[in-house]
């Protein structure tokens, strides 16, 4: 997990703002506020937000939603697996919170190019906080494990504020979060 050090170009910030928009939609739908966009060739080609309550499926994280939009579209266009893999390798993900262990693994399976995230995920983070699934290890390099670059701390404050508002609203008796309170179900 690299922390962004002054490399927040206007483009990166603009895409993260779009991801935050998605997180706000989740918030308004009473879902844990995490959102993301997927970018290829400088254009947003998919977006997603957390949908775990609505679906009663706790795996429907923003990343999974955005990935499925793309897969459906690409399969409808009758792209082959090779073409799909090739396109994922040109995709950048902007997500408001560090991908969890599940999503971080999924992004590696797809062979995504690069990930930018807002705040760290102290409890479930799979890009450095708890496990490092974005990197290659000796046990898995021989079976084709794919790594991707991952940069955190892009507009992390905004992402944390959304969580804070969410948990304060949902649970008025909860103690005030003392640190980045991050809990993606």
């Amino acid at each position, binding site marked *: 997990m690299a922390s962004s050090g002054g490399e927040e170009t206007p483009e990166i910030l603009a895409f993260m703002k779009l991801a935050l928009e998605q997180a706000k939609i989740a918030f308004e739908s*009473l*879902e*844990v506020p995490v959102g993301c966009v997927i970018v290829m060739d400088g254009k947003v080609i998919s977006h997603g937000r957390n949908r*775990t*309550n*609505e*679906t*009663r*499926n*706790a*795996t429907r994280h923003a990343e*999974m939603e955005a*990935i499925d939009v793309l*897969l459906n579209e690409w*399969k*409808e266009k*009758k792209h*082959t*697996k*090779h073409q*799909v*893999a090739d396109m994922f390798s040109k995709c950048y993900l902007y997500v408001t919170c560090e991908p*969890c*262990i*599940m*999503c*971080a*693994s*999924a992004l*590696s*399976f*797809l*062979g995504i190019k690069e990930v930018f995230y807002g705040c760290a995920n*102290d*409890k*479930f983070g*799979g890009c450095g906080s*708890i*496990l490092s*699934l974005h990197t290659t290890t000796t*046990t*898995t390099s021989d*079976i*084709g*494990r*794919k790594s991707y670059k991952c940069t955190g701390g892009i507009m992390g404050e905004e992402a944390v504020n959304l969580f804070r508002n969410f*948990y304060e609203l*949902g*649970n008025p008796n*909860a103690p005030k979060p*003392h*640190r980045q309170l991050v*809990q993606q*179900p």
Partner: protein
Amino acid sequence: MNKCEVKEHWGIVYVPDKPPFPLHQQPTVKVHAAVIDPKHANTLVRKLNQILPLENLRHVKRVRKQVLDEGGIRLSMMLCLADESDDTQLEIIPQEIVDLINLYKLETFITKVCKYAPISKEEWIEQSKLWPTSYHPPTYNISGITGFSEEESLSVCTFMKQALDLSKCECQIVNAAIIVDPSTNYIIAHARDQVNSCSCFINHEHDVMVSCLNPWQWCNENSSSCSWHPLRHAAIVAIENSSERDRRLFPGSGLDESTDHLEHDLMLKKQKTECVKKEVVDSQSNNSLTELTRPYLCTGYDIYLVWEPCAMCAMALVHQRVKRIFYAFPNRKTGALGSVDRLQGEKSLNHHYAVFQVMLPQEKNPLINI
């Protein structure tokens, strides 16, 4: 195969939260620590717990008290993790800790603490010689950890056998998952990998394409149809099927407003007292009317998997709050329940399941049978 035969050759082995280590070789991690003035101890503990809670070292006490030879005591305090290599260039102490060090003029040193919580009194005594830890004998008892009754092991073996059967078709061997409510022995959902499309009609060789064993392999398979999905591993599909069942059997019932996941425990209590009762036709009960309880995700359910799941699937099962996982074959390269990672032992996660390996008689291994 009759019931007795099933049971005779099978075994159920608990896969603990941490790898087994000899008593005197408990793994350690390096931490930064400092000798502190006893009158600052309470304030410092409070501040440190706020700025750096050290989730994975909850079993390690913040403060070590040593009785000195010349009388008097010395208090030392654990501050934060240190770099495991001996390269001092790599030492990064979080800024908030640096501020504390400066404020209280602390002299830091690097020491070792035990990485895993003790699981026995003997381990605890041994660990505390290095740096004190705390020992909590298990307060929960997920049934099975202390052993299975005859009846339970029989149903575990029966469900695992069903999962094995499900994993094979004419052309492929894939991973398979069955979600079961152990309180009723109802099958809640079942699924096979849907990563590669099935090609039974053109291919009669048994391809082994177990998604969790090599999740990067999906793009190397040629596929003419569109029924493939790189992330639809059996466990993920089974979770989806169980949530579909939930929505189908309990449309729009009361839990939708409970969005606070921090409060899921509270919600569970609520659920227990006011069971959402509904008369539904359940497919598992010969179309008779039964009273069903609205589940909260997969709380209380077991899942049977032929192969140990990868990290994606294992974390999905944490999210969906499965109670117990049974798998037959380990996944040496990407398994996340003991082989490579061990999610059941990750303290920071908000849910922990118990994991078991079901040992089969040799001839049941589908890789040997083909």
